[in-house]
């Protein structure tokens, strides 16, 4: 398995772990009624604003850990550049990611025009934000294995 493929596996696992652990933490520490409130969206605002930097920082730490561990285990260096194949794979994966997020964004508008609770909008935005990242990485893995 190539370095790029291993890196994507690590990225997928770390994304799932970070999102799951942070969601559990945020829900357990949420004020009573703040999640389902129809007029106070501070919980959802802070959830997204905190999740982004936490996720980025955790991914950087995990990536550094992976590079060090991989070097010790296999004596393989991380590629120091992205070549044309990497860029095409990344572009195609980003397209998949964008489609998923756009679909989620449209879906998240539904609660605003129906009788569904408003917090479903934020729930859909966060869920599809996570899914777009995850499916984008899975697509990247697929393109590396099957070609473009």
């Amino acid at each position: 398995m190539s370095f790029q493929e291993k890196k994507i596996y690590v990225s997928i696992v770390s994304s799932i772990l970070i999102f799951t652990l942070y969601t559990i933490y945020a829900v357990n520490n949420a004020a009573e009624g703040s999640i389902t409130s129809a007029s106070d969206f501070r919980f959802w605002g802070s959830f997204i604003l905190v999740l982004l930097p936490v996720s980025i920082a955790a991914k950087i730490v995990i990536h550094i850990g992976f590079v060090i561990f991989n070097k010790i285990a296999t004596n393989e260096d991380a590629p120091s550049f992205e070549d044309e194949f990497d860029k095409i794979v990344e572009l195609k994966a980003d397209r998949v990611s964008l489609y998923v997020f756009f679909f989620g964004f449209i879906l998240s508008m539904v609660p605003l025009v129906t009788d569904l609770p408003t917090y479903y909008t934020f729930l859909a935005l966060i869920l599809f934000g996570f899914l777009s990242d995850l499916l984008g990485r899975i697509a990247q893995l697929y393109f590396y294995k099957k070609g473009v």
Partner: protein
Amino acid sequence: MGKDAIRNQIRNLRFHHHEMTQQQLADRVGVTRQTIVAIEKGNYSPSLELAFRISRVFGKSIEEVFQYEDQP
């Protein structure tokens, strides 16, 4: 374009050039080993520039390294 439309002789040419490794070829043409693997398997058709660089490593013309096959 079908991804199998372009075939190549890279595996054979590497073997006849002192059993050059994929990593050695990748280093000489400025790509990662993963890209050479994908090209050899027919999973990726390289850019014209990269195809020229690969051909020059083996001292061959592009058509001696890469062959385009018309799909029925």
